[in-house]
């Protein structure tokens, strides 16, 4: 072991004389095609030769190759490194000319090749003074763990200065020795150290220790590390079990309908098969009879009946054996994995809860404006979705003029509020005011506005989705552990939803405006006689609701997309949120959004491969819910509740 390490070191430092004569260019020329058009499976030869050559410039070459800086000159087939306009000789590192794209062909190693190059570079980079290179090396090991990496990695831990990277290296070395450690004791110790780590790569390591192979035999073999014995019908479908038997040549193959048909056609003599007229063989039963007749004559193999099948299954044992022969190791790994899995399950539940919370906050944000216009004022605004869209497009337009993403979002939020507030006020003045006593017609009129606005947006911004980019500090995710993580943008939306909840509660319950709003909604005539101007209040309230929709639009655009149809995606959901929660109450909307968000995630969890089904069942649930609780979760009481 020590010798190999020394060998590797000498290789790096003092190359052997015999290979010294060779230049890097020579090696590359012998593999010219492979260097120009590398493939993952075939690149190994080149890499081996390069590493074996021990040339110091090979490392620089590999790095350049990985970064796609290597070109071939068409004229003479020589390879160079091209950085911007400079053409650099690979052996000397001198700039030898200007890179002219017309007679150079770039080598474009694909992802798989780049990974292979990265792995080849590991041994050179683990102790490189440049921390980014050391990091790259550690990442390369993490992506493709191999036994040979264990020693160089362990050797490099001592000299590692960066504490974070050192911790990563130690953790990685632990995982490597769990898989490739020299003795059973070191491996078991390493495995025990891994227990409690939820990360995907640790689970990967343990699972790889625990890989199994399915087998079948009449008796359990001795000396094999058996994982478990399977019972056909319970752990294993009977058909699968039988096909395992067939595959192991322990039972004759099943004869299915197609085989019966083929056999019958094979044996047609004149107009009959096995004594049955061909024209009568138009049912499965008749075909089975004819086949049985053929089998009796020994022309075809007899059918495998259910009885034969059961006997065959009963006389064999189905089991899985670990590929790792040492039972102590597998036991330790199994115990560690079980402990991790139960923690993972818990974490997954928490993660799902976070997702649900995030979805609920998005629904809440989309619906909260509606909670005011519909819930408090009773106005059905089908154009609410289009106000969301207008807000999002406002954000997009602001980003066209203000390139700084943080600043643009700070401008976009109040501007979106202003734009949609204006639109809402205009709509209230021009349309809704005239229809206060005809709610159904408000629905239709605002629907007209909705389709007009949607088409207008298409005419102005095009049908293409427009980007609304979040500032860099909202990129990435808040990671609790390898399972629980939530992106910052979703947290921002959640926080925003909370702020608006607080704001609206404050405005409605603690301010003069809120008092007047409540007065006007409860009894406009009485409110007017108390000196409140109901027209003004209605206008302001509607503007407020619309303005909040605009801000919601910016938020939704940040996390998803900005299109002319984005509003339509949320409108039905938003109405349902308000209705389910209970009209006339902001808390109700919160409850409604939470119910819908959690419900949808719950159903998705039950049926993860079909998100559409989750949405369908969620709506069905809501319909039923409203049938049995027509006033919503938080029902209004007293006189205000009357229609």
């Amino acid at each position, binding site marked *: 072991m020590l010798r190999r390490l020394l060998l590797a070191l000498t290789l790096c430092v003092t190359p052997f004389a015999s290979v010294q004569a060779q230049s890097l260019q020579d090696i590359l020329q012998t593999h010219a095609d492979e260097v120009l058009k590398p*493939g993952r499976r075939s690149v190994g030869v080149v890499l081996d030769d390069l590493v074996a050559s021990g040339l110091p410039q090979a490392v620089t070459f590999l790095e350049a190759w990985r970064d796609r800086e290597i070109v071939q000159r068409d004229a003479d087939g020589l390879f160079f490194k091209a950085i911007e306009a400079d053409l650099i000789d690979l052996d000397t590192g001198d700039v030898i000319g200007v890179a002219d794209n017309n007679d150079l062909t770039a080598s*474009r*190693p*694909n992802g798989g090749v780049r990974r292979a190059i990265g792995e080849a570079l590991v041994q050179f980079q683990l102790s490189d003074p440049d921390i980014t290179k050391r990091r790259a090396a550690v990442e390369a090991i993490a992506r493709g763990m191999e036994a040979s990496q264990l020693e160089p990695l362990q050797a490099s831990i001592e000299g590692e200065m960066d504490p974070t990277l050192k911790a990563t290296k130690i953790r990685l070395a632990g995982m490597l020795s769990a898989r490739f450690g020299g003795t059973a004791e070191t491996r078991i110790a390493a495995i025990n150290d891994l227990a409690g780590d939820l990360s995907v790569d640790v*689970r990967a390591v343990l699972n*790889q220790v625990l890989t199994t192979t399915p087998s079948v035999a009449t008796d359990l073999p001795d000396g094999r590390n058996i994982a478990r014995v399977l019972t056909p019908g319970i752990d294993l479908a009977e058909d699968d079990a039988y096909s395992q038997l067939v595959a192991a040549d322990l039972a004759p193959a099943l004869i299915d309908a197609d085989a019966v048909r083929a056999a019958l056609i094979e044996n047609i003599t004149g107009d009959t098969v096995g004594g049955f007229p061909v024209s009568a063989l138009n049912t499965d039963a008749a075909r089975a009879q004819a086949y049985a007749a053929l089998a009796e004559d020994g022309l075809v193999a007899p059918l495998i009946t259910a009885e034969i099948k059961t006997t065959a299954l009963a006389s064999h044992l189905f089991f899985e054996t670990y590929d790792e022969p040492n039972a102590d190791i597998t036991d330790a790994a199994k115990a560690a994995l079980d402990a991790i899995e139960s923690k993972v399950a818990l974490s997954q539940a928490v993660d799902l809860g976070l997702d649900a919370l995030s979805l609920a906050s998005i629904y809440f944000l989309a619906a909260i404006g509606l909670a005011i216009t519909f819930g408090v004022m009773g106005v059905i605004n089908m154009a609410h979705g289009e106000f969301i869209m207008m807000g999002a497009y406002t954000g997009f337009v602001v980003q066209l003029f203000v390139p700084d993403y943080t600043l643009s979002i700070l401008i976009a939020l109040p501007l979106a509020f202003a734009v949609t507030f204006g639109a809402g006020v205009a709509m209230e003045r021009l349309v809704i005011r005239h229809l206060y006593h005809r709610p159904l017609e408000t629905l239709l009129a605002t629907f007209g506005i909705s389709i007009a606005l949607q088409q207008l947006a298409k005419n102005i911004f095009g049908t293409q989705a427009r980007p609304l980019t979040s500032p860099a500090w909202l*990129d*990435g995710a808040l990671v609790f552990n390898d399972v629980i993580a939530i992106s910052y943008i979703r947290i921002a939306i959640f926080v925003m939803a909370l702020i608006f909840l607080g704001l609206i509660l404050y405005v409605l319950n603690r301010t003069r405006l809120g008092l007047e709003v409540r007065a006007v909604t409860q009894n406009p005539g009485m409110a007017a006689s108390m000196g409140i101007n109901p027209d003004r209040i209605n206008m302001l309230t509607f503007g407020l609701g619309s303005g909040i929709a605009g801000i919601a639009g910016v938020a939704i655009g940040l996390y998803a997309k900005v299109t002319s*149809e984005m509003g339509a995606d949320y409108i039905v959901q938003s109405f349902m949120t308000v209705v389910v929660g209970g009209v006339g109450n902001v808390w109700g909307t919160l409850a409604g959004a939470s119910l819908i968000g959690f419900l949808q995630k719950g159903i998705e969890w039950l049926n993860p491969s079909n*998100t559409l089904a989750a949405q369908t069942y969620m709506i069905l649930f809501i319909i039923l819910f409203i049938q049995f609780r027509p006033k919503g979760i938080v029902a209004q009481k007293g006189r205000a509740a009357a229609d």
Partner: protein
Amino acid sequence: MSKLLPLTSFVTAGLLASTSAFACDAPIKVGVLHSLSGTMAISETTLKDTMELLVETQNAAGGLLGCEIEAVVVDPASDWPLFAEKARELLTVAEVDVIFGSWTSVSRKSALPVLEELNGLMFYPVQYEGEESSKNVFYTGAAPNQQAIPATDYFLEELGVEKFALLGTDYVYPRTTNNILEAYLLDNGIAAEDIFVNYTPFGHSDWATIVADVVALGADGKQVGVISTINGDANIGFYKELAAAGISADDIPVVAFSVGEEELSGLDTSNLVGHLAAWNYFQSAESDLNEEWVAAWKAKMGDERVTNDPMEAHYIGFNMWVNAVTEAGTTDVDAVRTAMYGQEFPNLTGGTAVMLPNHHLAKPVLIGEITADGQFDIISQTSEVPGDAWTDYLPESAVLKSDWQALGCGMYNTETETCVQLTSNY
């Protein structure tokens, strides 16, 4: 021979054009059946513009058979039944000689019965799920074996992917493609439990859970790769969530079949560098023809506009049709169809596309990595792959074959040696 003919006709047509505008009195009409409004307008409007550019170019080069070509543009408005109605109008009222159109499979299936009833001719330019070969349609987009299978091979061979997440929008193209891929992966020794399939609705935006599920697939230490047939807008949310979760192309590569230059223009691609797409054409293809084409497109439409794969399909389809008409000396559908078989035309990516008797093209397959400027870096290009109408990887269609030239049948059962039907399934 077939290469010489158009050249000579150009010369004669050019001469005629120089004396009088066009020799014949009635123009040759080309129907353009692409949605200009509704949800598909985003993709299809580009193809309408492509057709107009192609017709203009051809007219400038002397038209066709001495006649001017006129593009008859109608708008089926992303409304599938309207495709049938408009196709009928084009064929019976406007009396066009050929139709270039359709994007989604359902719109093609809507127009098919009309085309077959009235013996029309349509060129369909988009990659699709296969399992069809109509006498009246030429498929210039990719069949699954010209896009999905090579991309999967790339995953298996070059990236060493051992566990697959097939994510798609819930409609026929992803469903069928994923079925084919599942069968193909099982054939290649990938276990059934290592294939994760998920379908989401059109325009889906809540991707957090699905992305987390995909990451969790790596828990048994196998390299995970995503094959995405996610369509349209939904991609934006998906890629945003991938970026937010910090998943790079080195960790979990994603190859997309419906994401091209046009779709990327709605995205900030800096976080997506290295993810892949498979097509028969990328704007970044290095060839003189392509440079000319891109320049002509930008000159017509503006500098910021990009070219994409279905545009190249129309480019090849239209030019093949022009050559076939010239060869046949008439625009009669049956004569043109016969002349189409074996028709060759240079690809924009290099090499030559050939029209096969099963109405599909032989085209090279390209795999590109997304770059920071919203383009693709081509990292793999095969030689021409002949399009296969009926996939070999599903048992029911493995026995089917299409050959309109020799067998005169688009759905021929090689086991029973009979033609299942002359019309198509719709």
